[in-house]
């Protein structure tokens, strides 16, 4: 964990990650904030790489950049009139306080931890070890998480789907006779 290259990489990644995270807070445009968030994710992935946790790094990109942020973009686009502006809300100051508490906690933990206890040499083949521990040691939590996610997925589909009658009624209002007189001029 030494050498000019590592230091250079660490500091530039740190600047990118923190700068992008600040950008999320500052930006008034939701899509801009999303782009910043993605940049921040990528910075974190880079930091993982520096720690020789390439599996986590790649999964970070695959899941957070490739899937979660895209889903967030989708949600933003599908929400009417939320596409552009980051509205003022009453939650602003409570959010600020919460954020301060989280930062304080993190700093406290970082300062109090005995870092010397962490093993020095990087884990070889982290993917294999993670896989083995998921299937052997932590198989129950793993399965529970899978069931939970499936349930969430099914619930989301059930929520997003309207009743059939509702759709039928909507479609009936779209028949030719219904729409014709509402044509209006160009």
């Amino acid at each position, binding site marked *: 964990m030494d050498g000019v*290259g590592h230091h250079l990489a660490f500091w530039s990644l740190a600047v990118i990650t923190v700068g992008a995270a600040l950008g999320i807070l500052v930006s008034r445009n939701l899509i801009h904030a999303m*782009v910043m968030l993605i940049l921040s994710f990528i910075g974190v992935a880079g930091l993982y790489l520096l720690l020789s946790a*390439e599996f986590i790094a790649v999964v970070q*990109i*695959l899941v957070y950049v490739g899937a979660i942020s*895209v889903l967030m973009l989708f949600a933003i686009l599908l929400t009417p009139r939320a596409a552009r502006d980051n509205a003022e809300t009453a939650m602003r100051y409570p959010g600020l306080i919460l954020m301060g508490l989280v930062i304080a906690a993190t700093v406290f933990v970082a300062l109090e931890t005995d870092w010397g206890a962490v093993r020095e040499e990087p884990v070889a083949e982290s993917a294999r070890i993670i896989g083995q521990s998921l299937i052997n040691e932590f198989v129950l939590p793993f399965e529970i998480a899978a069931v939970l996610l499936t349930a969430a997925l099914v619930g989301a589909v059930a929520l997003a789907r309207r009743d059939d009658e509702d759709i039928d009624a909507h479609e009936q209002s779209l028949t030719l006779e219904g729409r014709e007189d509402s044509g209006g001029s160009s």
Partner: protein
Amino acid sequence: MSAWLLAAWYDLRDLSGISREITEWVASWGPEWLASAVSGAIGAIGILAVIGPTLMILIWTERKVIARLQVRYGPNRVGPRGLLQPVADAVKLILKEELVPRAADKWLFFLPPVLVFIPALLVWGVLPFGPHMQVADLNVGVLFLLAVSGTNVLAVFIAGWASNNKYALFGAMRVIAMTISYEIAMVLALLTVVFLTGTMSINGIVLWQQQEDLILIVLLPMTALTFLLGATAELNRTPMDIAEAESEIVAGYHTEYSGMRFGLFYAVELANTLVMSAFMATFFLGGWWLWGLDAWVPSWIILLVKTSLVYFVFIWLRGTLPRLRIDQLMTFCWKLLVPAGLLFVAIAAVERTLLLEYAWDRTIALPVMAVINAAVTVAVIGAYARVTGAGAHRAPAGPRMARGRLGGLRAARQLAQAPSGSD
């Protein structure tokens, strides 16, 4: 072939020798970080040196092949046999005005053409051109490939959104919906490969094929098909080019891009096609390995030939097939590719267990598995066709012949009830 030639740095069969020599030389006098930086730079330059000219030739090839498929000549004016046409195209694109729509999101509008290039270049890093010719042999290479090529979606989405154009937004929405779905199918396909070979290193997959003396497409035809189709979707090529569906949404996400910005999208599209062909060749056609021929012919030439074959398939698809509708594409992905992918993950797990734990004789077990997998593939596709009704109306009845009947509704009803012999 004498032994001293094999190890020499100028051995064309293994270009990594050059890189090794230079890196060792730098390491002999300089700090270690400089040596690794130089090693990386050589890899990057090597990749760029491959991509640049290949892209030029590819543009020409694609246009020429498509032209031949379409009974025309294709470019034949600029340079010998039109070979300089890509140069002329590039010059034209560079000279063209780059329009920025007034309503576009200026910052985000500039970003995507650059952004799409990063994943397009990065994925080359894990592609093995030979036993040692690989910029980075990550032990999570397969995941890296998926992760990096998946970020392409973001650039496309930003392009579509920032243009502030409805066609572009439609393209962006379509590309996200489609790519996420097909990425799952692709993940499952690669998971099958990883299960069977037991490694996530891409070079390891090639080495497995070398060791078992067979190419994976023989063992996993459905997986290869899924990967090919997933790649087609990810590359936005016909029949899955709904993101830029020319006849529907003009040019999709890059409707508003002009000049060299459009040129970058275009180049990346081709570069991605090339790299996906290369990965297809690596995963399923044995990559740089070809039954011992790689000892005589440079391995990277073998890979290039295989890549060209897959690339030709892509061009062929483009030249012959119309486009599917988005719901049909989704149906195809979620009802065929994903379930079949899950099935084959299970099959691969079983097969690996049999091979490893029960140590079946491979000369018998592998062919038997190949036959079983092929049969399952046919069965799965057949079942899908039966369930969805696709293929049921193959060669549907053509028009009836009026045969003297003439008139309006009455005649129409008579004709509809007439025995089919009147056809």
